């Protein structure tokens, strides 16, 4: 219920602002909806949304898997941490635009280049978060697992993973938003499809309803992923925690 109210407020503010700013600067919700419907009817909307979503999924999975593995290693093995730390700082501070442009120059305007560039941007934040998680692992539970001779996989699944899961969730949440922001830049600069490409087109034509139609559609998808996937998953993982106020 509060969520719906929150949505209603968003549209009310938008509509009011549109009245003051004028159609040319900020079209009201119905105009954007019309543009959205038109794009949907032609199939373009779904094609471009699908292309972007596929890139987000691939880059996100790649970065999370690699980032989690590297972060865990750096959190557990001192040598790995000392070797990896300078690289990590470099990657963390490397602007997304530089990575994308370099990837396109070196690997051509290809899908592989785009996805690799997006993943490289997301990678260091996943590493940092998971490293923190691995450092915070409870040594006393580790000893318990050792004494009771838990098999490696069982220990990982029941002792280590649950301790890392809040960190994985945090990395996933911040990572999803980061990937989604960067994928548009990559598409704008070097892909012939996707939401970023369409927004580039809308920008050249100064077609604000089209621009908003695409960005809001994708925002809606992200919201859906959050409510239908991330939140239920988190709720399941934390159900053992006594309810906090």
């Amino acid at each position: 219920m509060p969520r719906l109210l929150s949505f209603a407020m968003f549209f009310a503010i938008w509509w009011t602002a549109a009245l003051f700013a004028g159609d040319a600067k900020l079209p009201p919700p119905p105009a954007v909806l019309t543009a959205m419907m038109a794009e949907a009817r032609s199939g373009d909307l779904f094609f471009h949304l699908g292309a972007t979503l596929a890139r987000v999924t691939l880059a996100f999975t790649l970065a999370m898997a690699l980032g989690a593995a590297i972060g865990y290693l750096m959190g557990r093995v001192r040598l790995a941490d000392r070797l990896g730390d300078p690289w990590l700082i470099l990657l963390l501070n490397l602007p997304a635009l530089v990575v994308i442009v370099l990837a396109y120059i070196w690997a051509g305007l290809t899908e592989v280049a785009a996805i690799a560039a997006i993943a490289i941007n997301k990678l260091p934040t996943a590493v940092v978060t998971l490293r923190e998680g691995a450092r915070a692992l409870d040594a006393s539970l580790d000893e318990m697992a050792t004494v009771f001779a838990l098999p490696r996989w069982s220990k990982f699944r029941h002792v280590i993973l649950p301790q890392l899961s809040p960190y994985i969730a945090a990395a996933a949440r911040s990572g999803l938003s980061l990937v989604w922001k960067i994928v548009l830049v990559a598409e704008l600069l070097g892909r012939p499809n996707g939401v970023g490409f369409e927004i580039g087109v809308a920008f050249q034509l100064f077609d604000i309803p089209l621009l908003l139609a695409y960005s809001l559609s994708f925002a809606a998808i992200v919201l859906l992923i959050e409510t239908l996937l991330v939140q239920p998953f988190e709720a399941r993982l934390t159900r053992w925690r006594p309810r906090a106020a």
Partner: protein
Amino acid sequence: MRLEVDITSKTFRNAAGEQHDVISGVAFALAAGEVGVLVGPSGCGKSTILRILAGLDPDFQGRVSRPAGARIGFVFQEPRLLPWRSVEENVRLVAPLADEAKLLALFEILELKAHRNHFPGELSLGLARRVALARAFAIEPEFLILDEPLASLDVALAARLRDEIAMLMGGRSMIALLVTHDVDDAVRLGDRLFLLSPRPARVLAELPIRTPRSARGDAEIAAIKLDIMRRINGDPAKRDAS
């Protein structure tokens, strides 16, 4: 099957880089079916000895020989349960091959039947200890280690849990080692008591109790306790640590 321990020294280095002697000479042996008890004042290094015996701390001078590949059941002082797994899952996890009927009996004796699906965060300390005990017994250990299993429980609860532990240990042929600062618990549960000095720990005296656990009367227990107090303090009067 036999446990032989000869720890000549163990030192710790604290954060400031100072060296502390924790153990200065602890040697004893236990046979299967025997319950050994390390009795000593708080902070004398008892838990450190247990960690060494369980193989968790290889950094010491001396020698520990325990049956090769022995299944170890460890009841830690803080229960060390997995907070994200239910009571039953915590037990089953370490003993995936445990016999169904035996598990049921274990839950029955430790009064855990009503709590099988609870999470450890929902349990009192007494209950959490019971889960830790169930976990240690579920693997049918060959070497059982109990670190202050009755500490910080009220008297009545401690007595009940002590009886349950005694019941579980009876009829099992394993090496069991219990650590406590409570002389009463030591005399009621142990077959062979080792009195430890304050830090750095060394064995002051070894005290076998010949009467079987169940046959020990109050008078005999009182007599043994008095003997222990005399050995620890040097004066037989007044002081009663229980």
